[in-house]
């Protein structure tokens, strides 16, 4: 319920504050190399957040969230090359991606495509992007001044100060931008799930027919959250190509599509902070594994996935929340009385 949306967002603000502290502290203590690496992890965390929103809260299992991420990155890169600046390019990236998601979502939701086929369609779209863009190596594949570059990809112009195309940001500054974007997206998503719109989306996740029988046009709500999620993924894509310096069709490959789902499963559906945390954890795990040759990277990820699906099916964050709640109940003397609705708020 809406009773005191700010109070319900209290955990969101706490995590946002931790994020802000991290944002200012990290460049003081960490080396530039680590900071640049972190920017990529942050971009991926924004992607995870977008799937946490539409899957965890909207109940839409989109296997191709990475398509919106990649599309955002390509749209940014191509626009930035053509416009000679990043300001409009960022806006274009979000708008093109959202418009694409809205069109795709319109056919899916208004066509009443079932959940399974939704997964198949979104994954197929991702793989179509993958193979189409891979084939664009020739000089004839040009959008304005931007060569698509096939499997080599395109190098992405760095973000500049707003309306000031000559003042590019340095990697450390890009880190600040990325972290701020992650925090803003997180607070926005945390607010959204506590609005009426977000509550109805969660109701649809629980039981779509019931939501319809209450008089909600569920197709509109699903389309709405799907489109918003795609827009957030696009922001992640913009940050990603800035962190890496280029964008290649590999962003659309099956491995990345699966990885996004793994972050959300490990972090936990129904929370926003869980998948963000899981993304950072798994990002550093894979980086650490990359430096050795004893264990295969994919094997470890596969084992983690199986471990979570079988033993921690709710994911890390919801399991911790359940555990804390259970302990609170056991110590009645120290129970804080909570008014309004419990649970379900954004964490």
């Amino acid at each position, binding site marked *: *319920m*809406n*009773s005191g949306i700010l109070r319900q967002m209290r955990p969101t603000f706490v995590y946002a504050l931790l994020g802000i502290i991290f944002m200012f502290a990290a460049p003081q203590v960490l080396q530039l190399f680590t900071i640049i690496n972190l920017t990529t992890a942050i971009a991926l965390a924004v992607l995870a957040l977008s799937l946490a929103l539409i899957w965890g809260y909207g109940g839409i299992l989109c296997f191709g969230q990475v398509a919106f991420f990649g599309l955002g990155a390509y749209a940014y890169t191509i626009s930035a090359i053509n416009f000679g600046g990043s300001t409009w390019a960022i806006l274009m990236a979000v708008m093109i991606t959202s418009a694409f998601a809205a069109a795709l979502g319109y056919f899916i939701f208004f066509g009443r495509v079932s959940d399974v086929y939704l997964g198949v369609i979104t994954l197929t779209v991702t793989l179509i992007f993958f193979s189409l863009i891979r084939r664009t190596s020739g000089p004839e594949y040009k959008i304005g001044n931007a060569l698509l570059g096939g499997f080599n990809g395109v190098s992405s112009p760095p973000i500049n100060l707003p309306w000031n195309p000559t003042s590019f940001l340095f990697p450390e500054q890009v880190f600040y931008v990325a972290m701020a974007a992650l925090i803003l997206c997180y607070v926005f998503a945390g607010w959204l799930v506590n609005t*009426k719109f977000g*509550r*109805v989306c*969660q*109701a649809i*996740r*629980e*039981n779509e*027919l*019931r*939501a*319809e*029988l*209450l*008089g*909600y*046009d*569920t197709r509109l709500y699903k389309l709405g959250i799907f489109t918003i999620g795609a827009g957030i993924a696009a922001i992640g894509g913009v940050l990603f190509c800035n962190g890496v310096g280029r964008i290649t069709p590999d962003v659309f490959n099956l491995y990345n599509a699966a990885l996004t789902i793994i972050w959300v499963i490990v972090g936990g559906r*129904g929370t926003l902070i869980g998948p963000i945390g899981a993304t950072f954890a798994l990002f550093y795990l894979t980086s650490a594994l990359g430096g050795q040759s004893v264990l295969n990277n994919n094997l470890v990820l596969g084992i983690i996935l199986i471990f979570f699906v079988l033993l921690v099916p709710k994911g890390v964050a919801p399991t911790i929340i359940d555990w804390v709640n259970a302990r609170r109940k056991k110590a009645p003397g120290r129970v804080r009385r909570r008014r309004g*609705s*419990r*649970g*379900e708020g954004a964490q």
Partner: protein
Amino acid sequence: MTRQRGDVVVETRDLCMHFGGVRAVDQVDFTLFDRELRCLIGPNGAGKSTFFKCLTGQLRPTSGEVLIRGQEMTGAEPFEVASLGVGIKTQVPNVFDGLTAEENIWLSARRWHGDARARALTAETIERLKLGDIRRMLVGRLAHGQRQWVELGMVVAAEPWLVLLDEPAAGMTHEETFRTAELIEEINKTSALIVVEHDMQFIRMISRTVTLFHEGRILMQDTMEAISADKRAREVYLGHRA
């Protein structure tokens, strides 16, 4: 539009719903007046739920028409039917398992009102249906009868002028069944109702006019006494049950 007792609120004309060769609903002409309380009875498989689903937009009829308050609603989406101000409870309980009882009911009230009014209505409904003890509990953890009550709460909280209930007392205890009958009487003070039911005792508690379905058609429409006395009706239904 002002409503008067005696206005037709639900009408079906020559309604048919066929599944392949099965004529689940066959040429049904049905009329419900405002403030009326109508029970639909009939043996299992008589087509009551199918008829119900045609009214609520869950099924698109093979042919025929559905009119709600004079408006053509044949093949409308469920949300369009509900958006007319129709409260619906399906045979299989449909609730939001992962949300609390309170949130379930709030979502119903919130469809029609701003947040403050929706919260007030939610509190009222919880009081009225005596759901205070379970309001903070996840509905998925509740007993079957309680879930049914939460669903009834969702129907009531929307303040509908027409209420459609498919087997509201199914799986309830004796006490709960009795209270459901009371609630239905109370709802009937302000709304018209169609209640699909199996439980004869329950029907005797609430019934005015009863429509008896058999093999997809309306076999009889009369008072419960008259139907109980009718030989044909006893053969298709009452014989095996009451």
